[in-house]
């Protein structure tokens, strides 16, 4: 299918890290009720090193929502939280060899899901964070 790159199709057809982490240290759920796509991300964090040791996701969404979820989990797995927080939707899109213009917004969901999971981890552990990690005003619209 020419709509999506081979990488996107690979991650869509064989998504990595699908599922739940019952004992997750942080869970983030983001979504857009209107386009209907919802992404939930689970992370396990090593309290010593602040490294994301495991990550899983569940997504209700389009092909690129699933592929970007999958790619995002791959990109943060094994990384320190500080680095995971630097993940941009653009990086996810690039790692997937691009997305069609009207599908760029789907990748924002993945970036937001990572941030939401980290925020939940910080909240649970009473770790203070700056306003830059607060839920974005436009997150609900993921980019439109």
């Amino acid at each position: 299918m020419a709509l999506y790159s081979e990488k996107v199709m690979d991650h869509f057809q064989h998504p990595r890290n699908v599922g739940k982490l019952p004992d997750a240290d942080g869970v983030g759920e983001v979504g857009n009720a209107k386009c209907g796509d919802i992404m939930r991300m689970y992370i396990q964090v090593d309290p010593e090193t602040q490294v994301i040791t495991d990550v899983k996701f569940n997504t209700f969404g389009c092909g690129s929502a699933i592929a970007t979820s999958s790619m995002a989990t791959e990109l943060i797995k094994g990384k320190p939280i500080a680095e995971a927080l630097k993940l941009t939707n653009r990086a996810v899109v690039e790692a997937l060899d691009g997305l069609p213009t009207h599908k760029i917004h789907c990748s924002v969901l993945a970036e937001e899901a990572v941030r939401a999971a980290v925020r939940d981890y910080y909240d649970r552990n009473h770790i203070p964070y700056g306003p830059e990690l607060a839920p974005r005003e436009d997150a609900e619209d993921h980019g439109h």
Partner: protein
Amino acid sequence: MKIYADNAATTRLSDTALAAMTPCFQEIYGNPSSLHTPGQLAAEKLAAAREVFARNLHADPREITFTSGGSEADNQALRSAAALGAKRGKRHIVSTKFEHHAVLHTLQALEREGYEVTLLDIPPDGVVTAEQVRSAIRPDTCLVSVMFANNEIGTIQPIAEIGAVCRQAGVLFHTDAVQAAGHVPIDVEALQVDLLSLSAHKFHGPKGVGVLYARRGVALTPLIHGGAQERGKRGGTEDIPGICGAAAAFDEACANMARNADCLTPLRDRLIAGLTAIPHTVLNGDAARRLPGNVNVCFEGIEGESLLLLLDEKGIAASSGSACTSGSLDPSHVLLALGRPHEVAHGSLRLTLSEENRPEEIDYILEVLPGIVSYLRDMSPVWDE
């Protein structure tokens, strides 16, 4: 297995249509406006094609105008009726919430130009009633436009009853018959339709050819100004190959209509039964009053685009009213009008069959689909809640 189950989007050109087109490409290629023999041979082809549409619609050839497709026919029908209405100070139009965008967007343009539009709600069974139309007609109503069969959910509207209501009220009646033409019988006289649009590529004719039927006395406003083609109603050199292909396809579809319906209906019903057996699955639109080839269901907890991509991987070409399949963020206005919540409308699947589909294909679809639905539901954070 490769299965094309998206015949409401477009169809494969039939052998009959192609055979009618072929001589027009390099042999009878004249311009029908030309006086010479090559031109007059083309003019004869054009007249014969017009005759075919007239005959099958129970119309007069002079009531048939060829356009570039269903959208143009819809646009011109609405604009013509609106212009006629304005002349008599009538600027109110009645239509429905689940019309095709060719109608809805034209109505929006007319609203910007000062017309008032009432869009009827869609009952849960997807069938608008003549009573709804009657109640909506006002003294300043100039046009009622109700589609013959809906393009997503395939429900067939009570066109004869609506036609009677409009005739009685002295209001012009247009029906977008793009999905119906060639699939269900159409008699513009019996139905009391004043304007009707159809599009050839929905019944195995070529793309880029539409027909606008306009009852005698209903003056068409040109949408495309130019030469004197189509009795001055539509400028532009006629696409003779396309028009000949369209006529041949329509003739064939009308001749085989009953047989095709008899063969499609059981396939459709088997699909509906099989799909609605999957838990949390609903059929969209009335089960009986629908096009013989249309199946449209919503799977809760599923997103349409993913479903389509996975079906495509299995060789099945289908369609969805999901927002994610389109440029817009809104799921199908048809399913929303039908009362489906956003997230349910999001998980819709439309399978539209033609007489070229085989029973084994239905088996295959029913074999593959439940697994895909489970797979996507398992991945969904909505479903496991």
